[in-house]
């Protein structure tokens, strides 16, 4: 096969400086999960350089490039399940793309309006609750929301001094109830990283979630 043909099918580039950029991404995700309800932004200099195949946003791509590898099967929701995404992630991360949500370490949710339940993902066991899926949920808006189908939440729990208020969406109408069920399973459960393309919001299983009206 001529080299030009290889270029034609090769996936798009990943992180330009994997060592330092992975550290930046990780620290942002760590801060987000340690302080649920606070949006932590990835630097524009980082997200601006990432050209991931649709529908992965730069932030979601950065998180997977920084944290996923051959030890972590990735589940793609229906909206994200295409050959380009699969080739991009398996090339850069070396991760296996899995059809089974229950064995995934990471799950990429490109269309949260169809995410109505969380119990299909791995919740870990009572002995090993860490063996659970981390969902990366791409939303259109994060922070102040007004749009149709978005939710406003009141958060309490570890990482939150008193109460935090945050909105995002649009998401499935059943997601808030699913998040409450997820909290009720503690210490089992899944953890969510919600991103709008630059900002990152952590929703670990330890966070208590109530819906607020508009």
């Amino acid at each position, binding site marked *: 096969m001529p080299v030009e043909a290889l270029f034609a099918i090769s996936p798009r580039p990943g992180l330009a400086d994997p060592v330092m950029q992975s550290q930046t991404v990780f620290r942002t995700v760590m801060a987000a999960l340690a*302080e649920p309800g606070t949006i932590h932004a990835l630097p524009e200099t980082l997200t601006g350089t990432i050209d991931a195949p649709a529908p992965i946003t730069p932030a979601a791509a950065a998180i997977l490039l920084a944290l996923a590898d051959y030890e972590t099967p990735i589940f793609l929701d229906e909206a994200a399940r295409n050959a380009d995404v699969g080739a991009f992630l398996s090339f850069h991360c070396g991760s296996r793309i899995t059809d089974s949500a229950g064995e995934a370490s990471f799950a990429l949710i490109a269309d949260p309006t169809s995410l109505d339940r969380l119990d299909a993902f791995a919740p870990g066991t009572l002995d090993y609750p860490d063996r659970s899926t981390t969902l990366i949920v791409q939303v259109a808006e994060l922070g102040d929301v007004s749009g149709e189908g978005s939710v406003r939440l009141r958060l309490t729990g570890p990482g939150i001094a008193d109460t935090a208020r945050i909105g995002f969406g649009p998401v499935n109408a059943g997601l808030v109830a699913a998040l409450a069920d997820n909290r009720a399973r503690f210490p089992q459960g899944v953890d969510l990283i919600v991103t709008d393309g630059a900002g990152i919001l952590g929703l670990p299983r330890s966070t208590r979630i109530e819906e607020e009206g508009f």
Partner: protein
Amino acid sequence: MSANAAAEAARPYNYAYLDEQTKRMIRRAILKAIAIPGYQVPFASREMPMPYGWGTGGVQVTASIIGPSDVLKVIDQGSDDTTNAVSIRKFFEKTAGVAVTTATTAASIIQTRHRIPETPLGAGQVLVYQVPIPEPLRFLEPRETETRKMHALAEYGLMHVKLYEDIAKHGRIAKTYDYPVMVGGRYLMDPSPTPKFDNPKMHRSPALQLFGAGREKRIYAVPPHTDVVSLDFDDHPFEVNKFDKPCALCGATDVYLDEVILDDRGGRMFVCSDTDNCETRRADGHRGELLGNEEPRA
């Protein structure tokens, strides 16, 4: 080639010593540890260029989180100047190119062996503990399978019995360090062998607290603003260590003191274990017994 990439190429090993796959594995463990406060996440601990017991767990955690913009402080029993603290600080200066400090307030990451700084920590700071035995139940139940089941079922009666037996034997809970805590009302946690004097500082601290046990291959965490409650009984409430005298050098009364033998005729002094706190107070004009007992001029 960018400046970063050039520096990278010139370095004989990867940034912050660990290879990237190891860092990813540890980073994933840290994220799960934060999501399940107090739960010990198993991780594939690596050989480090220092022996077990010298802080290999804490060093691996720090190496996985640290970046060039961080400012690192390392303390050993409160001191910035002891061998362990100095060598770990140098290790990260060399391998991660970070700025280091002894000032608690200037640090973004503080790696500690068995003390929490006296200066209250702030939001955004990360405190990394070096932990020898992460399992609080280990000396009561040697089998990992059993202690894991106890954590799964939140069955911590054994620890309460141990504390009760202390009271029956000694009239009080005799544990003065390594004092067990409940995190977030769910997991029994070993705060590492910090004096119980420091336990109240963990409660609802605005800083993120990460714990690394290298030999035992466990990472656990207490996120900011999380309840950390020392176990006790209604009629034997938890109390911190009290000291009869103030610090002999800076006159502080509300701090943890070390006893230092001065001569072979019984001479001794009590002095701040937190050297940064003591030095800051002396710079502010506070004087203890051995320095003339002056209070700062108004």
